[in-house]
């Protein structure tokens, strides 16, 4: 069946540490996006990345579409990075019906 799996489910970091979050998906995707949900519930788009690599400041993401996974890298983490990170995909056979992973809950300690 359709699957979008994220790992790890929970992550605790000391401020300044680096981390890698992973998203596996079960079929060929049209669209893959990474989001950050802050502790107040607001979702912010981080990357639109169905393939390739992008960087934005301390964040970068890589999607290897042929191997059906995406990675989100956070470098030099800050307490403001805390929250839940979601990946969301829609598949080539069903555009615009987005499936979200269950998220990685990140807690960055000062």
């Amino acid at each position, binding site marked *: 069946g359709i699957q979008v799996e994220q790992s790890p489910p929970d992550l605790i970091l000391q401020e300044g540490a680096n981390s890698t979050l992973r998203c596996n998906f079960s079929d060929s995707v049209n669209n893959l*996006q990474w989001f950050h949900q802050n502790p107040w519930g607001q*979702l912010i*788009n981080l990357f639109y990345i169905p393939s390739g690599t992008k960087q934005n400041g301390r964040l970068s993401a890589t999607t290897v579409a042929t191997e059906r996974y995406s990675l989100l890298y956070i470098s030099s983490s800050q307490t403001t990075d805390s929250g839940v990170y*979601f990946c969301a995909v829609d598949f080539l056979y069903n555009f615009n019906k*987005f499936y*979200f*992973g269950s998220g990685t809950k990140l807690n960055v300690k000062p």
Partner: protein
Amino acid sequence: GAGVSQSPSNKVTEKGKDVELRCDPISGHTALYWYRQSLGQGLEFLIYFQGNSAPDKSGLPSDRFSAERTGGSVSTLTIQRTQQEDSAVYLCASSLGLTGGSGETQYFGPGTRLLVL
């Protein structure tokens, strides 16, 4: 410019009552999405609009749920005869609706927190 807005921000209702949730997308965004997020869970797709039409309604959990969009802008999600399991945060997102690139980036509203007693 203004982002996606949703109203009300919070809604408490009694089981069996109908509720209507509203979403105002970013001006010029033709694509609009509704999602539901239960406590501590990921997002569940409900429905997608391109303009005023909804090509895919398969995510609506039951026939008590309906949604419409008029004038290619504001959308309302209606839940009839609410049940306690409908309690969740209902999130709306919009995008330019252009295929590929940043045109598909979704921008989310703050959500409506629905509690059914």
